[in-house]
């Protein structure tokens, strides 16, 4: 497996108030022909994530055809689970409805932040609205800290979710350090989720402290997952599974690494994998958790 980088697609120029910086956690939605709408999270001057999009032509992906004038998703009201950021994580289509699962941000005092998963829904072609003022998935009896970025697949009446789950915060001289990995949840309707603590991708070593942004593809009997993992800095990882539940990490075989210089030279993370025109593509972030924008790669 080898990914050929096609270069950076987009990075905010800073002239839009809600999109001062970052284009984090890209999601591709097919529009028509070779046109794709790419959703991502951008930050305003106060570092609050808003979800926006650009429209790109995949046949000449250097060309941005349109940049969202207003955000698709904005932070929630004061005191709500997403009052400090609403960062889209996954788009799932079921029947006439599109489900945009997103990461809601709260800022804390004893620890710097706490995330929960929210949902916004939209009929085809229409704009998204929040499903509820409260979170869809929050910390639970078995996950007392937080849950975050997720991937949701809907097939044969069953909804699967792979999601980031924090195990603990540990104190350090630089403040608390989080540790999170990827767990699995299941649902009949995409709204009510059952969690039994099943771990999908676990830490490979003591040094590893963050595994996030799962992106799952099913190729017949083989389930594939890409994700971001880090000890020192983020890399894109890869795992395979026969059932979507039990995974084998094959990070060495992922076939994409940091560049020697440029926007994705320090880290690569938050992969999103999609197919189009007989090819498999990966959107991903580079340096600064999306601060340097996102790029595109193709499987060769």
């Amino acid at each position, binding site marked *: 497996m080898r990914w050929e980088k096609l270069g950076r697609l987009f990075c905010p120029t800073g002239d839009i108030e809600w999109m001062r910086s970052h284009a984090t956690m890209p999601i591709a939605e097919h529009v028509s022909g070779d046109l794709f709408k790419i959703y991502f999270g951008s930050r305003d001057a106060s570092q609050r994530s808003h979800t926006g999009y650009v429209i790109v032509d995949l046949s000449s992906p250097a060309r941005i055809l349109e940049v969202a004038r207003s955000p698709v998703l904005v932070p929630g009201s004061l005191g709500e689970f997403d009052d400090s950021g609403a960062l889209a994580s996954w788009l799932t289509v079921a029947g006439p409805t599109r489900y945009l699962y997103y990461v809601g941000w709260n800022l804390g005092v004893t620890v710097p932040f706490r995330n929960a998963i929210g949902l916004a829904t939209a009929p085809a072609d229409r704009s998204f609205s929040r499903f509820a003022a409260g979170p869809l998935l929050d910390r639970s009896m078995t996950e007392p*800290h937080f849950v975050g970025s997720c991937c949701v697949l809907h097939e044969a009446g069953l909804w699967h979710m792979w999601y980031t789950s924090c195990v603990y915060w540990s104190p350090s001289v630089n403040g608390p350090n989080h540790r999170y990995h990827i767990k699995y949840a299941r649902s009949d309707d995409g709204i009510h989720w059952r969690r039994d603590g099943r771990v999908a991708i676990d830490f490979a070593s003591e040094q590893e402290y963050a595994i996030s942004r799962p992106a799952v593809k099913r190729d017949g009997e083989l389930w594939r997952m890409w994700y971001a993992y880090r000890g020192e800095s983020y890399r894109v990882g890869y795992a395979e599974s026969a059932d979507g539940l039990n995974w084998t990490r094959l990070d060495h075989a992922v076939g994409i690494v940091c560049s020697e210089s440029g926007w994705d030279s320090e880290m690569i993370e938050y992969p999103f994998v999609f197919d189009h025109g007989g090819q498999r593509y990966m959107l991903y972030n580079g340096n600064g958790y999306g601060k340097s924008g996102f790029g595109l790669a193709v499987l060769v």
Partner: protein
Amino acid sequence: MTRSRFKRAGLVCRPGGSPWERSHCQNPFAQRLGNEKYRIHFASRDDSNRSRGGWAEVTATADGLTQTARSERPSLDIGQPGTFDDSGAMPGCLVDHEGRLLLYYTGWSLTRTVPFTFAIGIAESRDGGRHFDRLSEAPVLGRNHYDPLLAGAPWVVVEDGNFRMWYVSGLRWEVDPEGKNAPIHYYTVKHATSRDGMNWTTNEHVCLPFHEGEHAIARPVVQRTDAGYEMLYCARRLGETYRVYRASSVDGNHWERDGVPLLDTSASGWDCEMVCYASLLHTAGASFLLYNGNGYGRDGVGAAILEP
């Protein structure tokens, strides 16, 4: 219902003074120990304003309550960093159910866009109520579809094997228009149900809608009556302080609020600025109202005797 009259009996217990109990004996409620002995549970605060569970044992006579023993260490400690109760664990009520002694409590988190949030946790005692261990590091009822902001101040009753909870839920926060003070919370009492005491079902129904100018209705304490249910709670308007009120209900969902306070402030002393967080203690000789005064219970637990 005729209006109740109370004779104030003064402070029953004061903050212990050790590092975890520098101030406050907040949210008092009684556990019956037998032979006219009771344990009054409450929350005390350390120098960082973090609440932990504590208690005082008292002996009751018709004239008052006399303290006989105190918790030497917290009966319920705060949680690990990052958990919902890492900045405070405030006992709410006891449930003696199928041989288990359960404590529902309010866990406090500090936040930055608003000053705090809270959620409801559960703990269990294996020594008759002296100490409690949390059953989970996570809340049993936190923010959810119908309670997007906060949930706290639990009062749980088991009826025919079903659990009912009256609790405080946030409706909104409002920014101070002048930007000088922290955002103002708007919360009041709601009702939730559960079959196992762990998994709770909530809805949008508000038990006690605000009267004009009110922004906080807190600490519901519910008991059965011949006609249905009676609730003690406290309420305050913007810029004012808590008073203790009563409401009555046939079904526990729909409530009629009394118009005037059950207990008002006194002319001077530890409860002259506010009275709040009341619960009832029925003993052989008398019925007592346990309550807090100024500063949300800063000076300790007070008692008032219900006059026959």
